[in-house]
């Protein structure tokens, strides 16, 4: 039962969440926090997909959310493995120290 939730507010919420995630990626130096902010951005997109799926009464959007979650799980598994390897080598996951490719 959905009682009068406006699609515009859902879009606004999604935009705000995406912006918070983007600001987090720009403002933090800890690689794990940056990963978490990417998850936040993915969830912002998921909210929008569910909203339009309900608006158009079409299940495709929710199936897409399902796929996004799967890809996020795979990404996190590989990403955290890479981060633990980096931590093993240089004892830090500060993004400012990960500049070997720069010079």
């Amino acid at each position, binding site marked *: 039962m*959905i009682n009068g939730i406006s699609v515009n507010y859902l879009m606004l*919420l999604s935009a705000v969440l995406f912006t918070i995630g983007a600001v987090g990626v720009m403002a933090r130096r800890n690689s794990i926090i940056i990963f978490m902010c990417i998850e936040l951005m993915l969830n912002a997109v998921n909210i929008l997909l569910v909203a339009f799926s309900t608006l158009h009464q079409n299940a495709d959007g929710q*199936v897409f959310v*399902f796929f996004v*979650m799967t890809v996020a799980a795979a990404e996190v598994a590989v990403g955290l493995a890479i981060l633990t390897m980096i931590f093993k080598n240089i004892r830090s996951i500060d993004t400012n120290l990960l500049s070997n490719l720069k010079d």
Partner: protein
Amino acid sequence: MSGLSVHQWLFGILSFLTVLFSLMVVFSRSPVNSVLYLIMSFFSISGIYLLLDAQFLAIVNIVVYAGAIMVLFLSVIMLMNLKEDTEPQRTVFTKIIAGIIGGMFLFVLTGVLKGVEVLDKKLYGTSHVGLIENLGKVLFTDFLFPFEIVSVLLLSAMVGAVMMGRKGFNKN
């Protein structure tokens, strides 16, 4: 104020909580606190899914995101022993620049949304799209091939993670 229905009130409260917890993820100094706030944020997002009649996704969001992925984050943070005092901080100047860029981005996004008058409608009635019966039918007919490919993706991600965690992987 009395014109708002219970669902609208719930939606307002849940979106406020989601935004608040997401802000706390970015602004909290301790990484463990960030993860916990992100879990809270995912729970409120699940509440929003429930309000939108997407019951299956609400449960999957809690089980997969808040249950599995966030526990993985938490265990890695505890493994690395990251604390508040070891947390690297950007300069205030960079943070202000990031805030300004984010504000401009949000401004552009809302500006675009304001122009979309077609979508200025409200959701009413009961939706059966989000029930697991309906989603399963779509998933196993229209999206059968992507579904199988995703299983291969998960398998390859698992193999990759195990490869990298192996002893002596980084010794040339």
